[in-house]
């Protein structure tokens, strides 16, 4: 009897051990295995570096060489030691972060010799300081800015490289509303390429047979400008002629000038009906700049654009930020009323291109209006923009690129935190690493004053970060609400879990009973 009871106790003990081992295997092996195989794959990302990038400690350095002409420096000037005048400005970017800009003033290396220091590399400046009484500069002008990178000044200035407003305009999408002037958001965003389309709109082909030699005009006048801007981005140009394309607004007839007028407040409604026909959706993925030349119908000629004060605009053109420009080209009425239609019209491409190229400059943000009157600027001629204007554009674009990279990467990090089911594959992670490295090298080059290298690095950084953020694989998993997750796992786990839990419960009960029994037995 005792032997049978002992065997039974043995069996029970073995049964207990078996149940416990099942439970142990299920918990120790099964749960971690299930957890690891169902979590979203996230390759490692440099979160610390991204955090550091998010602070954006910009340091912009301009290498300036100053040449003092004899007589411009007072005799008692001690040999000036090289010094750096650093101006720090804090721009509040958003409520969490503050952006520090330190703009070092020129590191002056006074050179009393007359040898001009021609440092024509990107981003540098040369200033020739002449005495007050010199006759090189005309009366009333204290600064003459040449079209390369040199300036004749009577006083030191810093017009040619960048101003605080141009830099903060470049960062405009990070600065909250209301802190910047109205100019800040209208310039073209920095992009790897731009597509320029010239369109001729002829609403009345029965009356006007318009001929424009666009190919020659592009080669002669537009190509020099684009070649100069080729450092900034890739440009491609195309052109088209659209017939029966009308403006969306009917112009008013003005008896005094016996011409038709388009008032300033009706201009915004002109673009939309035309845009559908421009075919910009078939063009490349780069931002498209449209330049339209509109030849008004015979019944609406001549057509002038009126500005807010009611005066006719001299250029007869208007532009829309980030879109392009429209110019109205009036055909002269023929001398004799009995002339055979259609009239042959040869468009004066020089006049047209002067306006279009000016609009192109304005779209990019190269405006000449901000300078005070004592400045005399040399006209850049057929190249369209001076070297130092190109430098300004590059500074602004570099800063904007780096800010974009920083925003993209910090928002990617934030998204990964907030949303649980974004997958990060290995190639996406490597793009992120590359973006961080390029951005850091761009900031280092900016601090050293190498604008060209900084710009190239910032372009690479932007490309990598955009590729990482917009990779299609990040949208791999969809969201499952919690009750759906329960519904999937319960039929799988419950049949297995119920016997284990019940046997564990039985073991616990028996153990408690055994603890009570010895006290009962004598």
């Amino acid at each position, binding site marked *: 009897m005792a032997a049978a009871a002992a065997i039974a106790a043995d069996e029970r003990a073995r049964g207990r051990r078996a149940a416990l081992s099942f439970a142990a295997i299920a918990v120790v092996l099964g749960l971690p295995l299930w957890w690891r195989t169902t979590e979203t794959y996230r390759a490692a990302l440099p979160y610390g570096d991204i955090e550091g990038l998010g602070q954006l400690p910009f340091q912009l350095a301009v290498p300036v060489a100053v040449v003092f002409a004899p007589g411009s*420096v007072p005799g008692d*000037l001690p040999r000036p*030691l090289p*010094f*750096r*005048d650093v*101006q*720090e*400005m804090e721009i*509040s970017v958003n409520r969490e972060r503050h952006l520090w800009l330190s703009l070092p*003033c020129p590191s002056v290396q*006074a050179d009393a010799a007359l040898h001009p220091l021609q440092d024509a590399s990107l981003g540098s400046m040369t200033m020739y300081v002449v005495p007050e009484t010199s006759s090189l500069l005309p009366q009333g002008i204290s600064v003459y800015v040449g079209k390369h990178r040199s300036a004749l000044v009577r*006083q*030191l*200035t*810093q*017009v040619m490289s960048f*101003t605080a*407003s141009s830099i903060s305009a470049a960062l405009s*999408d990070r600065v909250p509303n209301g802190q910047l*002037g*109205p100019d800040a958001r*209208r310039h073209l965003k920095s992009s790897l390429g731009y597509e320029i389309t010239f369109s001729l709109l002829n609403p009345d082909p029965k009356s006007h047979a318009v001929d424009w030699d666009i190919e020659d005009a592009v080669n*002669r006048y537009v*190509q020099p400008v684009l*070649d100069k801007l080729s450092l900034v981005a890739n440009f491609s140009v195309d052109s088209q002629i659209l017939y029966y394309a009308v403006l969306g607004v009917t112009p008013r007839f003005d008896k005094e000038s016996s011409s038709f007028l388009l008032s*300033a407040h009706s201009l*915004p*409604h002109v*673009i*939309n*009906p035309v*845009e559908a026909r421009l075919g*910009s*959706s078939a*063009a490349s*993925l780069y931002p498209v700049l449209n330049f339209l030349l509109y030849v008004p119908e015979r019944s609406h000629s001549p057509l002038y654009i009126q500005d807010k004060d009611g005066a006719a605009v*001299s*250029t007869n*053109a*208007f*532009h*829309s*930020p980030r*879109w392009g420009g429209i110019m109205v080209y009036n055909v002269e009425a023929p001398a004799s009323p009995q002339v055979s239609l259609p009239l042959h019209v040869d468009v004066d491409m*020089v006049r047209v291109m*002067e*306006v279009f190229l*000016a609009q192109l400059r*304005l779209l990019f943000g190269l405006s000449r209006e*901000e300078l005070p009157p004592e400045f005399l600027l040399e006209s850049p*001629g057929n190249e369209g923009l001076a070297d130092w204007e190109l430098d300004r554009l590059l500074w602004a674009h570099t800063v904007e690129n780096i800010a974009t990279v920083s*925003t993209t990467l910090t928002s990617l990090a934030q*998204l990964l935190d907030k*949303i649980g089911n974004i997958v990060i594959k290995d190639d996406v992670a490597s793009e992120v690493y590359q973006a961080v490295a390029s951005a850091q090298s761009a900031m280092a080059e900016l601090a050293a004053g190498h604008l060209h290298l900084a710009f190239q690095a910032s372009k690479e950084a932007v490309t990598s970060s955009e590729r990482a953020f*917009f*990779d*299609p694989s990040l949208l791999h998993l*969809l*969201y499952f609400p919690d009750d759906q997750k329960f519904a999937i796992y319960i039929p799988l786990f419950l049949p297995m879990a119920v016997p284990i839990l019940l046997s564990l419960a039985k073991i616990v009960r028996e153990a408690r009973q055994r603890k009570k029994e010895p006290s009962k037995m004598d």
Partner: protein
Amino acid sequence: MRRGQFPPSGSAAAGALRRRRGKMADAVPAARWARAAAALLLGCCGAALASGIQDQAEQFFRSGHTNNWAVLVCTSRFWFNYRHVANTLSVYRSVKRLGIPDSHIVLMLADDMACNPRNPKPATVFSHKNMELNVYGDDVEVDYRSYEVTVENFLRVLTGRIPPSTPRSKRLLSDDRSNILIYMTGHGGNGFLKFQDSEEITNVELADAFEQMWQKRRYNELLFIIDTCQGASMYERFYSPNIMALASSQVGEDSLSHQPDLGIGVHLMDRYTFYVLEFLEEIHPASQTNMNDLFQVCPKSLCVSTPGHRTDLFQRDPQNVLITDFFGSVRKVEITTETISLDRDLAGFESKLPKDELTTEPLKYAEQLPVAQIIHQKPKQKDWHPPGGFILGLWALIIMVFFKTYGIKHMKHIF
């Protein structure tokens, strides 16, 4: 504490910046020049900003957008969901009439109404009974049609994570200055919206998609309109700024359809969208009607359900938001006052850039049947993979049966 705010006047400008200098005596003229330089520099930006300040007051009440986009989604298919397609197409027509071009509209439709065998008037979709208004017309540009209208494609369009081969018309190329209108209609429930009878999108996913758009600054302001049953549940979970949402019914209520047409045999429109469109008919591109009027559209007496709206995430007051900020496309224009002077007689310009000589190789057809490769083929080295599911399961079954039959003590004969 914020330092370095843009100073309003030039002379005070120098004081507002903090400068650190090396070892330089104050009396040196170079330092004076530097100070004058700084003053001049800031005078430039100061002058530009002084005029900017009065514009800022104006702009505070105006939206800062430069372009408009619209994403119109009809999530149902099949003939009896005619009214959802008619809803979407009517909104499409209004939006186009008010100025948004096709290139800025992403239209997702199942598009199985016009050519449906049950349609008594083929190639038409009517939105009003007695067949008054054909909203299909001949210039409808559907970007995602039929089975392309899926939750995945919708989320890809919103977040921009589109495969590189997607054409431009299927992309939402918005930027930080875009106002986007998103209109969705179909069958919905508490917290979800059914897509094409096979899948659904939840309000959490939608909220996350909008957050991803916000993080990448893909919109300036967003107007979300939804016309489904229990539509208000879809906007409950939004947490990104600058979103305004309207729904046709509250949680627990059904949105009802408007009127059946006995000739076509189905309901043609939903009530909420019908009254919204009546409201939009009064709007023209220059109108100044604001959002508060849109909130009053379709009261309970007409709509039977209670329309709802959500504006707590929106920064501006709805009173100051124009309908045309979202439904129309008004551009900011500036008069061009500058010209540059070109030298007319310049000789032909030699481009300084090296022109890429495209080496054209002779073209030929691809190999249809790579005979050479087949004849001289070596056996390919296949990587070894561990046995897959079925084989593993089969072996597990065999082993389990064996040990069940013979008991575990036989293991020592095997191992």
